[in-house]
């Protein structure tokens, strides 16, 4: 299965490509959206800055390519970490930037609190499944996944929330709207549980 990984040149793409390969997919890393035609899955990875990443996606033509793909409904899309946040309507990083607006909501900075004094949120934390979904097939509820982020996605429609993660508050750690998925954690760095989630994503029947 051809899995197109969007390369916006801001992050570590290799580990995503390697994980896809180990899970039985054929990763194609591309900085140009022309490659989207043959893809059966689209992955938007990313670490870094929301505004920088959106600027790159606009400049390279990825914004319309990703939106068209999502609108077609035939090719499931997975945003990872910053890639999940870019699915939102808007991010507050860098003074406020429009996102891809595929899953309504905002991306806000995590604020340190007594219960979660450290920001960034770095390390292994539980993913509490809020509703059954094929991407969690074979993944235990409350399984630890690896997180590394300073911002979090606050969806405006609770129905899009697939999982939350306890860190001072219930952070939204996975979202879905139709065939568009986002995960705040890094499945490619979450060893067995992460690989299971990726395999599930590859095995999905587009709805």
């Amino acid at each position, binding site marked *: 299965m051809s899995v197109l990984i969007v390369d916006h040149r801001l992050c570590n793409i290799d580990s995503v490509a390697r994980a896809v390969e180990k899970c039985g997919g054929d990763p194609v890393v591309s900085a140009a959206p022309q490659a989207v035609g043959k893809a059966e899955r689209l992955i938007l990875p990313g*670490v870094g*800055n929301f505004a920088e990443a959106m600027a790159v996606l606009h400049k390279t033509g990825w914004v319309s390519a990703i939106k068209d793909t999502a609108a077609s409904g035939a090719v499931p899309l997975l945003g990872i970490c910053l890639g999940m946040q870019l699915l939102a309507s808007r991010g507050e990083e860098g003074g406020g930037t429009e996102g891809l607006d595929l899953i309504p909501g905002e991306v806000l900075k995590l604020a340190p609190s007594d219960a979660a004094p450290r920001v960034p949120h770095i*390390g292994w934390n539980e993913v509490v499944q809020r509703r059954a979904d094929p991407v969690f097939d074979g993944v235990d509820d409350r399984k630890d996944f690896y997180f590394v982020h*300073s911002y979090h996605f606050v969806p405006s429609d609770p129905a899009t929330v697939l999982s939350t993660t306890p860190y001072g508050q219930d952070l939204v750690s996975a979202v879905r709207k139709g065939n568009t998925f986002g995960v705040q954690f890094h499945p490619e760095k979450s060893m067995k549980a992460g690989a299971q989630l990726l395999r599930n994503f590859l095995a999905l029947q587009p709805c």
Partner: protein
Amino acid sequence: MLKIRIIPVLLYKNHSLVKGVGFRSWRRIGTAVPAIKVYESRQVDELIFLDIAATPEERMVDHIEIDQLADECSMPLTVGGGVRTTGDFHRLLRAGADKVSVNTGAIANPGLIDEASRLYGSQCVVASIDFMRRADGCIEVYGGGGARAAGKNPVAWAREAADRGAGEILLTSIDRDGTMTGYDTGLIRRVAESVSVPVIAAGGAGNYEHMRQALSDGKADALAAASIFHFTEQTPVEAKRYLAARGFNIRI
């Protein structure tokens, strides 16, 4: 709950893994790929890989070599050694590092932290701070792999690094390094209480009880260790069981 991390540290010099005492007396302890494979099979929380020869040789850790190592590594990987520019960050992130550690390069140019965190996000910028307790009782930051006093206080420097955008502090006691006599919990605590980013304690772990002390007395968020795993029978998995049995949140 977020889990406490136990992080093995791999120090690299002249194509070999090494471990010393007090940043000297380096002993070769093997090669990188087999060590990474062992930690991979044991599903450790994270790994730190530092090329300690890079800064003295005025070069950056070889990103092509990192690319090969990252292929073996499905756990999160922090890489450091001779990082001086945002271009260095870029090359290492592209090669497969999840986080980049900067030490001497940030002492020389603190603005590197601001720029790297703006471009790549705070979460991938690790400020590595090596400190020594001098005979006169002062505690000072050292750059160049412990070779040069930086004229900075580690608590103030950690705070500055975090304010500039570092997402994590890797705090290493040069005096305790390789001695296996316990972490410098006093200074770890002072730094942990001065910053709101995670603090990784390093230098001095000789047994699991030392690790517990660095968490309960030092308030560290993560524990880095090398000698204990290279030179004793103690393992990351057993360390985690020991700490879990004492009430810490651990990923088993």
